């Protein structure tokens, strides 16, 4: 059975069609990349999957059940979590408290939420920073915190929206390692990223959006050689 099923989804904002007849299936344990030019509709797809937007047409099913019209927090509780491109932690709260807020998605008690948050912070490598206010974190650490908050909700599937933007190649390598560890724990991933080195290394399959429509899909090496993708997104090597 597929984990996520996007079935011919269209999203219009007034006269603008942001996503057009988009379909996608993700199997349990899969790691899929979603790429495309700025303005192609990638983040809109994430908004649709996580309940921030409702599709104009089409259906989205997670574990076989439609999530159309379901509130974001309820979708999160079903096991589908996301990160945001522009990270917005609670700046004045400690790193630990930020992550505990995510943990309360499932934990009923403070002690349980704290235990979960401590574990997640150790996992993402922020254990030593857990008592500092979020505003004191550097950008790479804020990206880790963003992922920790989502992981604390105990997702079966995680949507990552440009967690590498603004990082240098060495910092990117560290995030790639972290994403592999998340995947190794059995979490399925859908990843939006412009850093091609990362998306090529991580994805088992890549889907390419352009003007809200899917223009290519397949294994990374095949997609990267697709003339339509080169023209719309990658540019030639010169």
């Amino acid at each position, binding site marked *: 059975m597929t984990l996520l099923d996007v079935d011919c989804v269209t999203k219009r904002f007034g006269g603008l069609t942001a996503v057009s007849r988009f379909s996608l299936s993700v199997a349990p344990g899969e790691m899929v990349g979603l790429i495309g030019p700025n*303005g192609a509709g990638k983040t809109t797809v994430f908004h649709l999957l996580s309940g921030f937007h409702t599709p104009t047409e089409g259906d989205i099913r997670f574990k076989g059940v439609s999530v159309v019209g379901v509130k974001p927090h309820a979708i999160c509780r079903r096991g589908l979590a996301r990160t945001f491109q522009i990270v917005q932690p609670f700046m004045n709260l400690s790193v630990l408290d930020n992550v505990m807020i995510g943990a309360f998605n499932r934990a009923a008690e403070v002690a349980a939420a704290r235990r979960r948050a401590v574990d997640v912070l150790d996992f993402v490598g922020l254990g030593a920073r857990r008592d500092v206010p979020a505003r004191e974190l550097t950008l790479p650490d804020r990206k880790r915190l963003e992922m920790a908050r989502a992981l604390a909700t105990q997702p079966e599937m995680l949507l990552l929206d440009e967690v590498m933007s*603004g990082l*240098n190649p060495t910092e990117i390598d560290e995030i790639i390692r972290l994403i592999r560890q998340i995947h190794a724990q059995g979490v399925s991933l859908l990843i939006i990223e412009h850093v091609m080195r990362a998306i090529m290394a991580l994805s088992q399959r890549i889907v390419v959006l352009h003007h809200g429509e899917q223009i290519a899909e397949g294994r990374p090496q095949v997609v990267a050689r697709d003339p339509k993708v080169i023209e719309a997104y990658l540019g030639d090597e010169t």
Partner: protein
Amino acid sequence: MSLLELSGVDVAYGDLPALRGVDLMIEAGETVSVVGANGAGKTTMLRTISGLLRPRRGQVRFDGERIDRLACHRVVERGVVHVPEGRKVFPSLAVRENLELGSYPRAAKARRADSLERVFTLFPRLRERMSQAAGTLSGGEQQMLVIGRALMTLPRLLMLDEPSLGLAPLIVKEIFHIIAEINRDGTTVLLVEQNTRQALALSRRGYVLENGRVALSGSGQELLGNEHVRRAYLGL
């Protein structure tokens, strides 16, 4: 004489030092890039040059004159123009209005029509979208707009903070190509980038900042070949 010269610059946020004894020089006509990890002090350096931050110690000289005690708008009038990270357009104003706001200093205003034509030649897509609200542009187009707006100010030194941030590969290539073209037209460029490889490849010289200090400097090619740079910043 250098166009821009930082000597022994210390900057701190409260008790937290951000730049420590930074020396940096840019000759007129060069493209120089500054690379380094997040938190190394790159943006702080640009903010200090443009007068948004005051050095605790040291000097910033532009064209021989001290500018580290001038108000920001006075620094801009002298030709030092800073494009901050994150594409800060006025979303509800038209593309053309955003551009016109760049020509605010008196000397720039006098040449507004010529500058506008130059920007539209450099960025044909902005001409097509001249009357559109800037907030409706794609990320790449917004980045073109803020670079265009800076050019309207008639910079002698154009400082760009992460112009490739969050942009698709094709647009990144286009932006780097345009930066090279702006430099060929005679504008000196100071580029801060995480996209270390492309930035150094484009630059005559580069500086590596680590923990607020200049750890290395050299020609773009030298730095690209440097073992430490390759390991720490290029992920090789």
